[in-house]
């Protein structure tokens, strides 16, 4: 169990990062709001509690690595990287601009701290599997983390990667599934049902946990538990709310790829206690 004050501090960080996400999307005038907000609590725990990494040395060989397989949530990743010190917070204002190192989707050759290029859904998990195998081959204790969308798992490649991760007994791989129930065209259940997710991954020989993806304490606990699992990769199904933290964005597929307007931004910041 984490100390109460550690949890409060992480919650405060997550709230601050929500503010950064909303501001950068508003400035960019395009980008993915809903899936960045649903993912930010998990990313906050990963970057500010769980992962061993060194922002002053992004290429440190023994670092834990994170693969944002649902690459459209780049704003959430960029907010974490800036907060951690990989680059200046001012850079966030250049999101999606011509010439910026902050591309619409994560680019390992442009942005310090980004491990692989993602954005085409379904491809990140395979790369995380490769990273996990490389880590084992090099005899490193580093862990590999990845975040998937619940629409993203409709891609066949996800299941090919899931098969491989179990086959190679990648217990250094921990995948979080951002289960917000929505994709672009509506509810995942109605577009192309992926349920039941837990039993599917169990059948693929993964260890599966399920948590409230906005409960910092629970996320920390499950990530820690994942570290104890031997001989199997772990999937953490994080029950989340798309647009979480901004009531008028919550549970809405229509805010998947729409940035906050000026008015929405100021109302959102009020909700987050930031004005």
């Amino acid at each position, binding site marked *: 169990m984490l100390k109460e004050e550690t949890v409060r501090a992480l919650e405060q960080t997550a709230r601050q990062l929500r503010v950064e996400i909303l501001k950068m999307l508003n400035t960019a005038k395009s980008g993915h709001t809903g899936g960045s907000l649903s993912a930010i609590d998990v990313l906050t725990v990963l970057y500010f509690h769980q992962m061993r990494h060194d922002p002053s040395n992004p290429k440190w060989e023994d670092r834990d690595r994170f693969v944002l397989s649902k690459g459209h949530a780049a704003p959430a990743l960029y907010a974490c990287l800036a907060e951690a010190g990989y680059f200046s917070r001012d850079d966030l204002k250049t999101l999606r601009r011509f010439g910026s190192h902050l591309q619409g989707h994560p680019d390992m050759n442009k942005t310090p701290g980004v491990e692989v290029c993602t954005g085409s*859904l379904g491809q990140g998990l395979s790369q995380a599997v490769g990273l996990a195998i490389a880590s084992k081959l090099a005899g490193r204790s580093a862990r590999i983390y990845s975040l998937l969308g619940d629409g993203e798992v409709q891609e066949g490649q996800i299941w090919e990667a899931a098969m491989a991760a179990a086959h190679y007994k990648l217990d250094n791989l921990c995948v979080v599934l951002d289960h917000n129930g929505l994709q672009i065209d509506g509810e995942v259940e109605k577009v192309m049902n992926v349920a039941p997710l837990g039993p599917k991954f169990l059948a693929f020989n993964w260890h599966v946990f399920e948590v409230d993806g906005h409960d910092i304490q629970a996320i920390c606990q499950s990530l820690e538990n994942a570290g104890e699992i031997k001989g199997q990769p772990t999937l953490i199904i994080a029950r989340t709310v798309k647009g979480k933290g901004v009531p008028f964005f919550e549970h809405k597929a229509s805010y998947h790829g729409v940035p906050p307007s000026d008015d929405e931004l100021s109302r959102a910041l009020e909700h987050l206690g930031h004005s």
Partner: protein
Amino acid sequence: MSEMIATRDAYGKTLLELGRENPRVVVLDADLSGSTKTAVFGKEFPERFFNAGIAEANMVGMAAGLAAGGMIPFASTFAVFAAGRAFEQIRQSLAYPRMNVKIVATHGGITVGEDGGSHQSVEDLAIMRALPNMTVLCPADGPETEAAVRAAAAYQGPVFIRLGRSKVPVVFTEGCDFTIGRGATLRQGSDLTFITTGLMTAQALEAAAILAEENISARVVHLGSIKPLDVDLVLQAARETGAIVTAEEHSVIGGLGGAVCETLCESCPVPVERVGLRDVFGQSGLAEELLAHYGLTPAHLVEAAERVLRRK
């Protein structure tokens, strides 16, 4: 200023009309139906609309099966995912058996804009064109898109149609004809010919007007059909004007420029300048910024024309 229409909007509208006219028309999408505009069809004909979810390979495979079962499937997603993710399904399940499926890929090229290079297809025309049995179309504007989609529906066999995200100027007239394998001369000229496709045709018309002020007479030939190519029209332009500038919102490798050069070097070698992305991926930015950065504006076309004339 001419009217501006996004080709994907023209697609959505035509698809709906086709759905009303022919009950065998079915539509598939991969979680992008709002952006590709197939949702317009899906709303009126939910029983003939199939959302594959984020599973492009399966979408193409299902489309093949629907065609084998006698339907006329239109399958849509962004060009990167259509030509890229589902490439081998298109090859084996559509092109090889000559299956009657229409892949309508929206968001082709760099005018996708802010999403960045991962989402900007600069290679789709090349890889689709390399497939035997495949027909590859790239309309210039809204009216031509309507006609091209209708021509594809009437044609028996696999067709790939590349459309764009942004609004583009109208250069054809409403109700225009479209014949697969035929190009269109949109402006007469005798000193050189711009051979263009997609949104570059409107840019070439502007460039030709600028050149006219310098007393250079530029012809503009639009090829909405990349494959089959209108070989006669291309050769005629080469013979009559003796210099060619190709322009496409695509890599200079393997697309329109490639197709034109292959034809010319075999039958009528003349100087050619290819305008397009020079073997690079795109990046984030506004559509206009990217067109300027990658050299796809009327001013760049004027420069290319001047270069080709010096080589004549």
